[in-house]
């Protein structure tokens, strides 16, 4: 850090601005999800000739997805904490756990989608299914992008060490990952739990 040309103050200011900017992105992303949620709730009764939500949701799998994502949110937070306390090996272990959990979550979600589509319940069948796939897959794409981001960050870290820029990026990734778990809580509640009541 002492070799870096920027002063400590400049660095703090830079971190602050970047974090606020990224936070504003997260807030606009929340509004995107809010519109998708609203659309889903409005379209939900429109099952046409297709199945209703209670007929197609595999609740134990959804519970597993929820727990896995929650665990990855925890390990992500612990990884950032370990970095801050100069325990890089431990941090790498936690990041690996985060990555594997995220991948597991995506695998379960894709299996669910695959099963639905192979049974003929794709997004083309009814308004309800269009809304369902759009909302849940948008979250899934965010998760996939997050995993890619994590891989890139770890590669950059391995090459250059913990520069201020990479430290900042890890912080932003942490915000993003916790944010995705929050969105999932509402998908779990509104789409899945609300769908089988």
């Amino acid at each position: 850090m002492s070799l870096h040309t920027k002063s400590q103050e400049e660095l703090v200011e830079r971190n602050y601005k970047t974090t606020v900017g990224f936070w504003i992105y997260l807030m606009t992303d929340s509004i995107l999800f809010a519109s998708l949620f609203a659309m889903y709730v409005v379209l939900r009764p429109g099952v046409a000739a297709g199945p209703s939500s209670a007929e197609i949701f595999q609740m134990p799998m959804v519970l597993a997805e929820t727990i896995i994502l929650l665990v990855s949110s925890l390990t992500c937070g612990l990884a950032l904490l370990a970095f801050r306390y100069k325990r890089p090996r431990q941090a790498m272990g936690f990041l690996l756990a985060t990555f594997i959990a995220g991948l597991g979550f995506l695998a379960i979600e894709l299996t669910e989608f695959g099963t639905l589509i192979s049974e003929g319940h794709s997004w083309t069948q009814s308004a309800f299914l269009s809304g369902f796939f759009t909302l849940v897959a948008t979250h899934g794409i965010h998760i996939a992008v997050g995993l890619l981001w994590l891989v890139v960050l770890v590669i950059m870290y391995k090459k250059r060490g913990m520069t201020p820029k990479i430290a900042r990026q890890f912080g932003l990734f942490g915000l993003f990952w916790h944010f995705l778990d929050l969105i999932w809580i509402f998908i779990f509640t509104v789409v899945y739990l609300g769908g089988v009541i």
Partner: protein
Amino acid sequence: MNRGYKKEATRYGIGFVLSLILTFTAYFLVTGASFSGVGIMIAIGALALVQLIVQLLFFLHLAEEARPRLRLAAFGFMFLVLTIVVVGSIWIMYHLNYNMMDMTPDQKTQYMMEEKGSGF
């Protein structure tokens, strides 16, 4: 240094355990459904909101950083827009469905009184 680490790690642990409890409570409320539909919906909605607050505090550490005002303001404004979008859409589309029915206003009112026990 070690003590600080332990303290912060414990906070993540507490947030995680609370989230787990809230998730399982909501799940078993629904799968082992014993009371009315609307009651459960309100209950799981409340549980989700509590979990939102738990994770904002324990995972995202909202309002704990050095200058929290901008982030809090952005969050507040997001919440306002979110409420307008979600409540507004549901409200409008619900009424729209009724207004699309092929009936005169009097027939519609009568139909609603029979179906739901109340008019608009």
